């Protein structure tokens, strides 16, 4: 028969053994994991529910674009750099093309500039819509995915209508944008720039996107679970973010009112009225909220550009048939959906660059993972990584 004393002893032993069973273990996440948006591997030391010494392992998708660019001509390189951040392929081309134009001293026609602005902002809308779809999904809310991806598909269809490519438009040429299929020196067709009805349809699509933003906000922002999982989680102070080179919405969520569209002159953003959205606390919630607001700001820019675009005009400046970029060096950076993307071109006057340094946003954005994931709960790894909105093609280049 079990006596009371035995029972107490058993219980106390059980208690002791439970306490003793906490041991550290090494947790490996990835390289194939849905929350890593590509092939990112994390190695973490896990003690109980918390993780320490997180070490990101990258390079699974390193394609060596900087070396490949050295054996290609400028027009060939745009096809490569579409594939850096494939969620917003069009936006990748802009800083590279503008840098080459700067070296060649080419003035781009106004209509082409407006088309670039419209398509760049559409790329931003589609990229942020992917975030709006995937981030709540990672935290267990599947419904926003359907709303966001439906509209993103509509935006991509419109981009495809102009450029011929959903993900990899390869639409910019030095001196302007690509004239549409069917025109050119060998055919007698009149050059047709934008597909008929494109501007009206884009305007409609943007109104739908605004409605969807409302719907997503209703669905997600009031959700108790989503708020609990994101508010106060993964706080990034502004000065830490700046020292790590974190840029774009991730830095603005920490309260830094800095947007390259306002300070650099790579596209005529000074003609448009839009706000730079900033967060307050720099937590996951703010990073989500800043992107939602940025969709609305981008829609504002697109609709102003549709109203203000010159009704006709050339799409191409006069450039030589064989592009040779004069000797010189320059760095041009742009506000991409993921953050600061820039190209440092070193030209020797040849048909291709002597050296091309690609500064991509996600690379710097996730270089601070070890810092921000120190001591967080294991489920918060997913919440924090998801909120940074990175793409592995943009990390590995």
């Amino acid at each position, binding site marked *: 028969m079990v006596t009371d004393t035995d029972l107490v002893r058993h219980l106390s032993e059980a208690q002791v053994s439970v306490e003793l069973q906490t041991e550290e273990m090494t947790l490996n996440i990835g390289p194939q994991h849905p929350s890593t948006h590509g092939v990112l591997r994390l190695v973490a030391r896990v003690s109980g529910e918390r993780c320490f010494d997180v070490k990101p392992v990258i390079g699974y998708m390193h394609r060596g674009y*900087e*070396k490949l660019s050295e*054996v290609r001509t400028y027009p060939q390189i745009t096809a490569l750099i579409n594939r850096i951040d494939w969620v917003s392929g069009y936006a990748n081309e802009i800083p590279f093309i503008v840098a080459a134009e700067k070296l060649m001293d080419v003035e781009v026609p106004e209509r082409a500039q407006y088309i670039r602005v419209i398509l760049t902002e559409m790329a931003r809308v589609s990229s942020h819509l992917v975030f709006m779809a995937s981030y709540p999904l990672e935290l267990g809310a599947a419904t926003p995915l359907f709303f966001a991806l439906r509209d993103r598909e509509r935006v991509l269809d419109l981009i495809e209508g102009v450029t011929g490519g959903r993900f990899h438009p390869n639409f910019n040429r030095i001196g302007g944008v690509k004239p549409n299929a069917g025109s050119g020196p060998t055919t007698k067709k009149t050059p047709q720039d934008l597909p008929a009805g494109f501007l009206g349809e884009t305007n409609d699509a943007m109104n739908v996107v605004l409605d969807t933003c409302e719907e997503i906000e209703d669905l997600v922002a009031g959700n108790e679970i989503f708020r609990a999982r994101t508010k106060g989680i993964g706080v990034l102070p502004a000065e830490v973010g700046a020292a790590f080179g974190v840029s774009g919405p991730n830095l603005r969520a920490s309260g830094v009112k800095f947007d390259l569209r306002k300070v650099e002159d790579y596209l005529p953003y000074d003609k448009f009225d839009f706000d730079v959205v900033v967060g307050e606390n720099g937590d996951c919630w703010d990073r989500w909220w800043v992107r939602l607001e940025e969709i609305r700001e981008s829609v504002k820019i697109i609709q102003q550009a549709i109203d203000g675009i010159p009704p006709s005009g050339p799409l191409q400046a006069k450039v030589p048939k064989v592009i040779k970029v004069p000797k010189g060096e320059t*760095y041009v950076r742009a506000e991409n959906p993921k953050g600061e993307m820039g190209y440092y071109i070193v030209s020797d006057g040849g048909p291709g660059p002597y050296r091309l340094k690609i500064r991509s946003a996600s690379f710097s954005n996730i270089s601070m993972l070890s810092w921000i994931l120190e001591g967080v709960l294991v489920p918060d790894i997913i919440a924090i990584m998801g909120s940074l909105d990175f793409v592995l093609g943009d990390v590995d280049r």
Partner: protein
Amino acid sequence: MTSSPSDTEATVHPLQEFADSAAETVGGEAEIQFDTIKLRVSADKWVDALTTARDDLDLVFFSWLSAIDWANDVEAGDPLKEEIEERIELLCTVSDLTEGRRVTFSTDLPTKKPSVDSIVEVYVGANWHERETAEMFGITFEGHPDPGPLYLPESFLGNPLKKSFPLLSREVKPWPGSVDVEAMPEKPSTENPEA
């Protein structure tokens, strides 16, 4: 909007004043090329210069760090048109977060056994950038807290972004794209080129 070095001599570039004051504060030579300020410093002043940039010039945002291999013999790509002094140029761009001012710091390192002090203590974001530059150009960053390859596997030999490193796919089969940039033939050839 755009400017070339010849323009800057005739009219003063809007960034000239900032470039001159930055050069004076840091102790280097500033040059403006196509709206990009490049500030040359000597390699032994590399860490000091960037510390000054962060503390006195308010350039708190770390943008990127990389290098250029200036070489006369190249295995991949086009060689330089003029003979130059062979060296490795280390570049680091930092920016402020208010007006968008940015400075690209530059220093020259010898091609053989290039080595420089790490700036991770100054800009923590340089960590991965220095690791990438180290494996791609063979530069040693003294005092780096976590050296080792970043992208490349441990067993990888060579430094891919050095001009002496061949691009194997091009060695096996020359790129047909090079035909595109050659001068147009005078008469259209009836022969099938490289069938």
